[in-house]
């Protein structure tokens, strides 16, 4: 296994919301998309993914719907969809993250 990075506390929500920006996905697809987008650096523990999905749904940022998945051979899958509130939350969290990461970067760069 190459270098995997553990997720920082609190960033999982942001990443999940990001994967859903383009359209509804089911759980496994979300984890796969995260892996792809991060060039296999970010490995989301499935054990944290599903509780996170539930939490996001609970807060009303995503909505779950049952549908059929072509890649699963037509099996029933639960698709997660971003709500309007979820979109707002995403941009808020994204700017927060940027602020945070640049600040950290700045600190690390300092001599």
């Amino acid at each position, binding site marked *: 296994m190459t270098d995997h990075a553990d997720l920082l506390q609190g960033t999982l929500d942001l990443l999940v919301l990001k994967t859903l920006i383009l359209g509804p996905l*089911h*759980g*496994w697809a979300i*984890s*796969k998309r995260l892996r792809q987008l991060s060039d296999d650096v970010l490995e989301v*523990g*499935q*054990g*944290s993914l*599903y*509780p*996170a999905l*539930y*939490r996001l*749904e*609970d*807060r*009303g940022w995503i909505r779950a719907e049952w549908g059929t*998945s072509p*890649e*699963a051979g037509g*099996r*029933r*899958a*639960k698709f997660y969809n971003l709500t309007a509130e979820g979109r707002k939350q995403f941009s808020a969290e994204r700017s927060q993250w940027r602020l945070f990461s640049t600040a950290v970067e700045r600190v690390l760069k300092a001599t």
Partner: protein
Amino acid sequence: MSSFAHRALRRLRALTRRGDIERELDEELALHVALEAAELERQHHLSPDDARRRALVAFGGIERYKEAHRDARGVRWLDELRQDVRYAARALRRSPTFTVSAVAILALGIGACTAVFSAIDAVVISHLPYPHDEQLVRIYERNSPTNQFGLSVADFQAIESWQRVFSDVGMVRSADAPVTAGAVPQQTAVGYATSGFFRALGVTTSVGRGLVAADDSAGAPPAAVVTHAFAAQQLGGDRAAVGRTIDVDGTGYTVVGVLDPRVKVMSGRTAVWPDAQPRKPTRRGPFGLLVVGRMKEGVTVADAARDLASISRREFVVWQASFQDRDAVLVPWSLRRTILGDAPQSLGLFAAAVVLVMLIAAANVAGLMLVRAAGRWREVSVRAVLGATRGRIARLLITESILVSLAGAVAGVALGVGGLRVLKTIGPHVQRLDEAHMNGHAILFAVVVALIAGVVIGAYPVVHLSRGGTSDGVLGGERAVGGTRRAHLLRAGLVVAEFALALPLLAAAGLLLNSFVRLQHVNPGFDAAHVLTMSVSLPAPRYANDTAVVTYWTRALDAVRAVPGVVSAGLGDQQPLTGDQGIDENNFDLLDRPVPAGTAQPVTPWSVVTAGYFAALGVPLVQGRMFVPNDTGGPHPVVIVSRSWAHRYFPDGTAVGRRMVSGGCTSCPPSTIVGVVGDVAYESLSDVPEGAYEPLTEGWGRSLFLFVHTRGAPMDVVSGVNAALRAVEPAVTLADAAPMDTRVAASMADPRHAATLVGAFALAAALLAAIGIFGTLSYTVSMRRREIGVRLALGARGEAVTRMFVRRGMAQAALGAVVGLVAALIATRWLSATLYQVSATDPATLGGVLVALLVVALAASWAPARRAAAIDPADAMRAE
């Protein structure tokens, strides 16, 4: 949808559709694993089995994730609650002795509380059976703050024609009269009412029609309504009843309707309600009517009082010739209040008693819990070390105590059903108590009491447990924890509290018992053991004139005196100690000392009696003379007064020969006092036995009470007396034959029952307190076995050890008892009104119960203390 509502809905779904959600989660995770496996199969060219295994490994334990998911769903507490309950139930099953005693103690407390609550619910909290009972008032005539009485027809008609505040007003005159529905007349409770009475109450008929305004006018065909019970027993059912004619005291009434059986009108005793058809009166009196009014929408009792006051002023002028008491005013009282009477106070006594018992029971179980918790300290500590949070352990203990108290509630409700039956038979004599039953309110009440008790009882040991460090528990075990100073104080605190709660209860029981014993020694003023009494009524049609009535009574008395076993006989219009119905009182004015014009005259119980009355009852002559057969009233009427009366108005002993006018009659000739007789208790044994008598002469009533002095047991002559009375007039109505001593006993029923019930509660309290001190001390002894062993081994004598523990137990009990004594001194003042010739702070009674309680404490401490002294030193030291 607000996000809060959204989340609440989801939580609700998570709880209610738990199975669905779990299934969906399973499905979702299975899909995840399948897809992951497929991917692995594709990328790494693995066999499907290997791929699946790797996918599962990558996922980690599925169950763990499910658990994490449940956490996020917020249903963990439910799962844990389920676990707690299961665990607590298991733990309780493992210690049946503890469980059974705790449940039994709580069942006792909760059962008593629930029974008394049901009574209070039915009597005080529930509404009267009439619609909008808050609009109903009863109207009285009041001439001084302490004296009010029923109205007269003149009053009622004045209100009817002048009032502006009531939508309906009605009156009832109650009487016991012979009613003939079949062949034989039966003495029956009759209420002569106007149609407005039923309209005001809102009581309707279930069959036929009610009384209407047309029935009220004099000359209308006499109509009556009857109760469902009367119709069923006497008239062959509701349908058959309507249209029948019944004879009420000589007048035929057509039954026009049967009252709604679901509504009990007034006390429920009155069976027949003829229309009163009140005529235009010729004078202000006589009084004694029950008048009720329904206030119009928006009218308050104060408004009604103003309206009635102005009616009183207007009416006074009209009747000034026959009524001079200008102070007499018509006053309205909320019907609820007049019906409840002093029920809130008398039930309040029992409520206070059961609350104390419940608190002691809870303290007792808390003590048991504490000991049990200390015994389980090691187990609890191990759990803590294994990762249970402190909150979780506390919850476990509280769950356990809630389980115990809920079980107590179930048993308590069952006990309460029996308790309520006891309360109904020997409880305080209050209206509507017979309507009490264990309903939803009572069960809810029991559950709430149980939950509160459960939390409090469970929290008590938690306070104590949560302070110690867990390592102490694992290493030191019970001794390290149960023996701390803090634990000792908590246990001692419970014992002190139990004794402090028990003492006021014992004090109340002692005072009530003392008062009852004194009441028993009151001389009723007559020879209770040898007097038979019964009511005798003559049929109206054949006894229309006074001559016929006088002839009957004279012949009847002669016939009764001839019955073997009869010593003497007399007649009177009052029966001493009749309880409910009350006694006729009359106002009078002494010629030597008239009251100022326009003010209230004094009143006294007033009987009309034959010359033989005093001899029959065994009332002695004190001064002057008895009545003689030719005391015929006329221009020189005579009266006899009781010793207390004479002493109050003429303390110098000069009552005989004085003159008075009675009944506010200004045109009547004054009566002369010819004799003073012994006191007779008319109202109740505890009242001042004043009274006055006038001879039964003109206008002999058709209904009188017969008093027969017997040589042997009074009931032995009943059949002979009945036969003698019927020989003179076969159609005579005889009722309520009883020896006078049963009347005396019945008049003491309330104080006797109060003493019995409160006494039972007090005994339970003392017993529980004793168990408390016994349990705590036994525990302490077992805790200090080793130390005691060492002491004994070092030469301490057994008595010294016994004394040490007895002293400890007694110190706690005494501290509690002293605190309780202070509380009792404050609280028993509340009993003053119910006590007879006993001060609420009677030092002998309070001292007595204090000593009694300490003796109980001594006995309860003695056994464990003796056990301590009997410890074998060698054994004790080897044990640890």
